[in-house]
């Protein structure tokens, strides 16, 4: 086990941030912690990176206890905090060099590991980090976290505030890193990124809702979901919410995701009901559940 967490709880003054969290991450796995802001992701990261001490429970990273053997962990992990923590007034190269030095290594020594990522920002190596775009900052921060060839990499919301193109590139990089025997724990509030992980834990309000592979998680969704659309989305939502047989009604992009509480649901009944509410252009068809549907079903 690369990371093992058992029964971790943590509370601040009067807020419970984490409640009895347990999970394991295997060596070489890309494990995602999926949940909204305030779910407790950052607190968990800080406990695992030895920055905070849990009130209850034990955890090990790379085989070392997070409390008693914190010094060994600090030598063996890479950590990229929520904000891209770079020195804004140092250049790209100076940032990288600094982080290499404090970890007792050099850029050359581990260049292999970061080459793929670094070549993309190398043209700007004399530019101050503060003047980089979000995507480039993210890449530089990743290089800095990797420069000492850590066994375990912690990435706390690495894609927040970054545009879709950079986000996609970033996940491609993570996939490549995984092949170099680095265990990666990544957190994100974006449900669509969950599918890119080997396994995920859905987390909300300090509790884990479910842990599994993304495929298994959607497979276990208990209901059939229907995409419903009509000429007026607001009236459609109102009507569906008022429908006595509904199980869940959620706007979902241009559609509304609808599940029915009856086992023998016939979409025609629903169409008739909606027409009685003076809606037109009604469309209703089956659709596959997403991670987000599962999340909402579990968090309900």
């Amino acid at each position: 086990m690369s990371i093992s967490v058992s029964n971790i709880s943590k509370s601040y003054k009067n807020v419970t941030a984490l409640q009895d969290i347990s999970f394991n991450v295997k060596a070489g796995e890309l494990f995602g912690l999926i949940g909204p802001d305030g779910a407790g992701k950052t607190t968990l990261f800080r406990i695992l990176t030895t920055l905070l001490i849990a009130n209850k429970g034990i955890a090990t990273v790379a085989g070392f206890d997070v409390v008693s053997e914190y010094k060994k962990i600090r030598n063996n992990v890479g950590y990229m905090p929520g904000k891209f923590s770079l020195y804004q007034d140092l250049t790209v190269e100076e940032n990288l060099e600094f982080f290499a030095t404090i970890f007792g290594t050099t850029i050359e020594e581990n260049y292999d590991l970061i080459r793929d990522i670094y070549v993309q920002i190398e043209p700007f190596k004399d530019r101050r980090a503060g003047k980089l775009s979000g995507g480039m900052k993210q890449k530089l921060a990743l290089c800095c976290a990797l420069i000492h060839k850590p066994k375990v990499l912690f990435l706390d919301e690495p894609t927040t505030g970054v545009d879709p193109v950079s986000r996609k590139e970033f996940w491609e990089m993570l996939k490549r890193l995984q092949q170099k025997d680095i265990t990666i724990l990544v957190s994100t509030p974006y449900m669509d990124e969950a599918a890119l992980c080997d396994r995920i834990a859905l987390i909300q309000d300090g509790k884990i809702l479910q842990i599994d592979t993304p495929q298994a998680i959607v497979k276990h969704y208990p209901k059939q979901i229907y995409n419903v659309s009509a000429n007026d989305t607001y009236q459609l939502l109102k009507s569906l919410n008022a429908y006595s047989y509904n199980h869940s009604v959620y706007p979902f992009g241009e559609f509304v995701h609808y599940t029915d509480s009856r086992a023998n649901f016939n979409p025609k009944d629903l169409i008739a009901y909606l027409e009685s509410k003076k809606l037109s252009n009604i469309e209703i068809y089956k659709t596959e559940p997403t991670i987000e549907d599962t999340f909402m079903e579990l968090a309900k």
Partner: protein
Amino acid sequence: MKNNNVIEAQELTKMFGDFAAVNAISFNVKKGEIFGFLGANGAGKTTAMKMLIGISIPTSGKAKVAGFDVFTQAEDIKKNIGYMSQRFALYDDLTVKENITFFGGIYGLSRKQIKEKATVLIEELGLEKVANTLVGALPLGWKQKLSFSVSLLHDPKIVFLDEPTGGVDPITRRQFWEMIYKAANQGTTVFVTTHYMDEAEYCDRVSIMVNGKIEALGTPKKLKEQFKADNMNDVFLKLARG
């Protein structure tokens, strides 16, 4: 207004030196429409929006917002729009009621109006128990719903939302969109700038800016067909990667 458009932009341009941050963009937004204004960081979204809300003067082109000219009637525009952003929304160190009173006050509502609106708003959002709690102590999702309601206090013709739902949990986010649909249904135009593509899927129409220009404009459905993509994220990736 003769036509139904609440925002009309023609060849709207903003230059910073030689650099065209916004390069001759043209589009219209209809009353009651939910319009998504998309683009990567640095594509010119924020600059364009600043011109539309009357805090930045365009270099050239024409634009009317709520029937007022962005060059000469910026002050009238400000009175007729609402604005909410994720970065700045409400004062954390004021209570829910104090925030409502304050923002109602700066938009010139009378004391009586503020009191009535506050009561309705607090009831609708189910905030009765926390009406006298500091906003900073509320969960993010509540804050954002409250912040949206506050931006609608003075019944603006258009409300500008800057990345409104980033990081919010999925259920709260749905509730937030339900509020947006409701506002639009009541005739308020909603202008959403974002680089989260899943937010785009909720809009009636979206425009996508790349390097200062609008490269795509239409309903999400149409754009997905046009770019042969499954979702708006793919549309965006195809556009951005050229």
